[in-house]
């Protein structure tokens, strides 16, 4: 009986949050519709039906799937590369003081520069096309992920290392059995923040003379004042972003559910 009660409250809790989400979306659509009728904003906010009708239009033009695929390839490759570089650099920074003292100021410095500012330099160096896109996303995601992982590692509770050592752990055991699991939550947080940065850098990355891509298309639609497909593309970026974030959150819950506190 008691268990049943627990189950129902738990279920209704889940349903409740779903209901709230639904309500939130409904209010957003309502607000959007309002913007689409107010004369001042009507031009840049076509209503939901008009916007959705752009899906077949853009498919007919033969660009929608190409753009999504192209952006996903650039974002995916840049993001993966950024992570592969960030992880060892963050570990080296945490482990060796000289590395930290020399590299950290660079990262802090570059991190505050909007990627759009250095895109022309990268195009000059790497030419147009896919390469500069990937480089821009790699740089941006590397910076955020490296800082996040490094901060996490240096904040690992030192008594855990002490406890492992008095229990007979050697350096290798400490690395594999303490440092690695203890830094996993920060690595996953970095992965989540990195994904978000990868998408927000998309427009800058695709301003490098790309031939396709969500960011590139938005810019080119902008040149013809085609606000309807533009809005569609903006929403698509948003949907990709939230989907990726949700997936990473599921991964976080699966892998680091043991944590006392969560969420950053």
């Amino acid at each position, binding site marked *: 009986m008691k268990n049943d009660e627990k189950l129902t409250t738990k279920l209704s809790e889940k349903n409740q949050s779903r209901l709230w989400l639904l309500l939130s979306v409904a209010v957003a659509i309502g607000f959007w519709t309002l913007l689409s009728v107010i004369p001042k904003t009507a031009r840049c906010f076509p209503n939901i039906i008009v916007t959705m009708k752009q899906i077949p239009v853009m498919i007919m033009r033969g660009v929608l799937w190409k753009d999504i695929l192209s952006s996903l390839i650039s974002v995916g490759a840049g993001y993966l590369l950024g992570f592969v570089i960030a992880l060892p650099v963050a570990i080296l920074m945490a482990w060796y003081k000289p590395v930290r003292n020399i590299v950290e100021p660079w990262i802090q410095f570059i991190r505050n520069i909007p990627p759009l500012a250095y895109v022309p330099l990268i195009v000059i160096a790497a030419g147009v096309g896919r390469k500069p896109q990937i480089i821009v996303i790699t740089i941006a995601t590397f910076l955020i992920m490296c800082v996040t992982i490094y901060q996490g590692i240096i904040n690992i509770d030192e008594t855990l290392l002490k406890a492992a050592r008095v*229990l*007979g752990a050697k350096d290798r055991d400490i690395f594999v059995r303490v440092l690695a699991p203890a830094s996993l939550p920060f690595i996953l947080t970095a992965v989540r923040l990195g994904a978000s940065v990868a998408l927000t850098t998309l427009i800058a990355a695709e301003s490098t003379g790309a031939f396709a891509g969500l960011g590139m298309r938005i810019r080119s639609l902008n040149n013809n004042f085609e606000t309807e497909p533009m809005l569609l593309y903006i929403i698509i970026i948003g949907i990709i972003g939230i989907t990726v974030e949700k997936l990473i959150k599921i991964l976080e819950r699966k892998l680091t559910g*043991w944590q006392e506190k969560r969420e950053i």
Partner: protein
Amino acid sequence: MAGEARNIKLRIDNVKKSYQGRTGEVIALNGVNLDIAENEFITVVGPSGCGKSTLLNIIAGLLDATSGAVYCNDKKVVGTGLDRGVVFQQYALFPWLTVKKNVMFGLEMKGIKGKEAEEIAMKYIKMVDLEKFMNHYPKELSGGMKQRVAIARAYAANPEVLLMDEPFGALDAQTRTQLQQELLETWEKERKTCFFITHDVDEALILGQRVVIMSARPGRIKDIVDVTIPYPRNQATKMTKEFLDLKNQIWSQVYQEYLEVRK
């Protein structure tokens, strides 16, 4: 030690520890000498900043002494060793491991694997009465339960000496009393040499055969009080005249040190 001829388990020989502080050399410990017999329960009291934790870390091999040395079984301590186990105030459980896996950690480091490790772990999990929670993660446990796991983990690794750094300092009064009682019962059964740090005079007296009082700045041993109250001890012991007299005697010395630190 009441005339008993006992082996010296731990010898602390003229240990000095100093740090390079901002305004010059800071002496944390100055000339600490102490012999701890096998099976003995030693408690250490003193105001914060008297270097008692530093001393424990040096015995554990987590810190090096500036001069002097610690000997365990007549062997000079260099680094950590499985002959010395530590229980920390902050529990220091691995949050990504279940209770059982935490207790098994030291066993696996020793190369004891699989069923054998599990059996030993279960014995100590039962000792601290946490079988029901063996598959839980630390975040699901209360502070007292966490410290029980930490104690089981230290015992399972089977050290000859248990070093405890204010293990009950972060617990509420009821839980602390209960864990003291459990620790006493375990000690009477297993008779492991214990070096137990606390700032609580009652705790020092109820547990220890000898109470070491430390003075601050620089930390050194001020006095050693023999606690002649026989075991088994319990909460009623705290009401006896013998206990109260000793408590007064120790308390006034500790308080004096506390005032010194305040200056």
